[in-house]
C-alpha cells in the first residue's frame, strides 16, 4: 500500500515537473496557447463544478461571471491604472458579489427553473456589456488591455502567461480540493443530495448555495481577469451562452462533483475541437455527435463522483487513522 502511494506521488511529481518545464520543451506558441486555454478552462469548469456538481444548483450562465471578471479587470486597468495583481483580486471580489446576487433567486428556485434564470441572467449581463456604451464601449469592445508586470518585468510573451495560468489553475485545484473535502464541502454535498435532511442536522442550505455561487463566480472572475490581460482585447461576444454551455459540458463530461473530472473535461474539450480542426466543415457536427455518444455510453463522465476518494474528512488529517484507511 505504501508502495502504491509512493508511486502515485512520484507520478504526480513527474507530472508537475513536466508541466513546469513545458514551455522549454514546446516552443510552438500555438501549443502553448492551447495549454493556456486548458488552464483557463480548468479554472472555469472547477468553479462551475462547485455550484453544479457539488452543491447541485444547475447554472447555465457561468460565462456571465467570466465576462464580469474580464470587464472588471479590464476597466480597472484601463481607467484607473491599477496594478494587474490588484485588478485580479478586485475582479474576483466583485464577480463574487455578483455571484451572491444571482444566488439570491436560487434560494427560491430549483432545477430547470434555476437553470433558465441563470441563463436569463447571463443574457442580461451580455446585453448590458453591449448597451452600456459609456462604460464598456459596447460592441466595440475594450482593446489595449495592458499586460501584467512584476516590478520592471512585463509579460511580453506567452511563457510568463503560461506560468501565471499554471499558478492560478494550481491554486484553484488546491482551493477546491481542500474545500470540497472539508466540512464546508461536505455540507454542500448534503445540500445537493437532500436539503431537508441537511437542515435536520443543522446545515442551512441557503448559506451554502450562496457560498457556492459566490465562490464559483469569484473563480470565474479570476479566469476572466486573466483572459482580459492575456488576449488584451475583450468584447461582449466573447462571453456567450454557448460558452456557458461549453463549460457545463466540461463539468458533466468530466464527471459531476469530481475535481479530476473537471480537469480532464476541460482538457479534452479544449483539445478535441483542435484535433478536429482539419475537418473544418464537419468539426462541429462531429463534436455534437460525440457529446450525445459520450452521454449514452458514459453518463457518469470520464471521472465520475463515484471515484470520489471516500472519507474525505480524513484527508485533512495527515497520518491519522491510516490503519483504517482503505483508500490504498
Amino acid at each position, binding site marked *: 500500500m505504501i508502495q502504491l502511494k509512493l508511486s502515485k506521488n512520484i507520478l504526480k511529481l513527474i507530472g508537475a515537473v513536466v508541466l513546469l518545464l513545458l514551455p522549454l520543451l514546446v516552443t510552438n506558441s500555438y501549443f502553448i496557447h492551447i495549454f493556456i486555454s486548458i488552464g483557463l478552462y480548468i479554472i472555469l469548469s472547477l468553479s462551475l463544478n462547485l455550484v453544479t456538481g457539488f452543491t447541485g444548483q444547475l447554472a447555465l450562465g457561468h460565462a456571465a461571471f467570466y465576462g464580469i471578471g474580464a470587464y472588471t479587470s479590464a476597466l480597472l486597468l484601463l481607467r484607473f491604472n491599477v496594478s494587474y495583481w490588484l485588478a485580479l483580486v478586485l475582479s474576483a471580489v466583485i464577480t463574487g458579489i455578483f455571484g451572491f446576487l444571482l444566488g439570491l433567486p436560487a434560494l427560491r428556485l430549483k432545477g430547470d427553473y434555476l437553470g433558465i434564470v441563470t441563463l436569463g441572467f447571463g443574457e442580461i449581463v451580455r446585453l448590458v456589456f453591449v448597451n452600456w456604451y459609456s462604460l464598456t464601449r459596447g460592441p466595440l469592445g475594450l482593446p489595449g488591455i495592458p499586460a501584467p508586470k512584476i516590478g520592471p518585468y512585463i509579460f511580453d510573451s506567452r511563457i510568463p502567461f503560461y506560468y501565471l495560468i499554471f499558478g492560478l489553475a494550481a491554486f484553484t485545484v488546491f482551493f477546491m480540493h481542500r474545500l470540497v473535502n472539508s466540512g464546508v464541502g*461536505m455540507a454542500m*454535498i448534503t445540500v445537493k*443530495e437532500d436539503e431537508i435532511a441537511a*437542515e*435536520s442536522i*443543522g446545515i442551512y442550505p441557503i448559506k451554502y448555495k450562496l457560498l457556492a455561487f459566490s465562490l464559483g463566480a469569484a473563480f470565474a472572475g479570476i479566469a476572466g481577469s486573466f483572459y482580459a490581460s492575456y488576449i488584451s482585447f475583450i468584447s461582449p461576444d466573447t462571453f456567450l451562452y454557448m460558452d456557458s454551455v461549453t463549460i457545463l459540458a466540461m463539468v458533466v463530461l468530466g464527471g459531476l462533483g469530481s475535481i479530476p473530472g473537471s480537469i480532464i473535461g476541460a482538457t479534452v474539450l479544449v483539445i478535441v475541437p483542435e484535433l478536429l480542426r482539419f475537418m473544418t466543415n464537419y468539426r462541429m457536427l462531429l463534436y455534437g455527435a460525440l457529446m450525445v455518444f459520450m452521454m449514452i455510453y458514459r453518463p457518469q463522465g470520464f471521472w465520475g463522483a*463515484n471515484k470520489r476518494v471516500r472519507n474525505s474528512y*480524513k484527508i*485533512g488529517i495527515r497520518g491519522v487513522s491510516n490503519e483504517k484507511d482503505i483508500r490504498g
Partner: protein
Amino acid sequence: MKKILEVDNVSISFGGLLAVNQVSLHQNKGEILALIGPNGAGKTTLFNLLTGVYQPTSGKIIFAGEEINHYKPHERVKKGIARTFQNIRLFPTMTVLENVLIAHPDCNSETVIPAVFGRKKLAQRRRTVVEECEEILSIVGLQDKLEELATNLPYGKQRLLEIARALATKPSLLLLDEPGAGMNSVEKEELTNLIYYISREMEKDVLLIEHDMKFVMNISERIIVLDHGEKIAEGNAQEIQSNPKVIEAYLGRGNFDDEE
C-alpha cells in the same frame, strides 16, 4: 419533574385540512415518550412542526423554556433537537462515517478560509471530530462499516445510521420517526437496548413515533395517542391499552398492529 418540551395548543392546516388540531403535550426531562396513532393521525406532521419544517398555523412550541416557533430547522438543531425520518433520508453518495461527520457541529460549522488554509490546529480539531463520530458509530454498532456507502447498507442498518447521524448533532432531545420500521425481531431487540442506552447512559430525551405496539408498550414510559390530528389519550401502557377511545380509533380502521 422538569418539562423539556411543551407543545401548547398547536394547529396546522394544509389547504383547509386540519392536519394537527389544537394539540397540547409535554415531555419531561429524562423521559422516553411515544407518539402513536393510526395512519394519517398527524404524528409525522407534529414532528415536522417540532423541527421547523412546517410552521404552525397557531399555538406555541416551547423547548427548554424558550419559545422556538420562529427558529428555522437548522437553528433548532443547534438548540438541541435532532430527528430521524420515517422514509430514511441519508446522503446516499457519502460513506457511513461521512454521514455522521457532517452532522457533527464542529464539522459543519467550518468556514471557508480555515477549511482551505488551516494546518495543524484544523487537523487537531478534525481528529477529535473523527474520533467522536467513530465512537457514536460504535454505539449503534456500525463501527465496522465506516467506509461503506450509506446506500449499500441493509435497511435496518440505515435506520441505525440515521440515529447515529442525529446523535452526532449533540442533541438533548431526539425525535425518532418509526425507528423500528422494517426491522426483524432481533434487530428490534437491539434497537430497544440502544434507545435505553441513549436515554439512560447518554441522558438524552427521546420522543418516538412507532407502529409496533409491543415495541412501544415495552419501551416508553408514557404514551400519547393522536387521531385525526387530535390528541385523544395520554398515559402509561396499561392506561392506553384500556382506553376505549384508543381502541375505537384503531378498530375503526383495522388491526391494532397494522403496520402499513
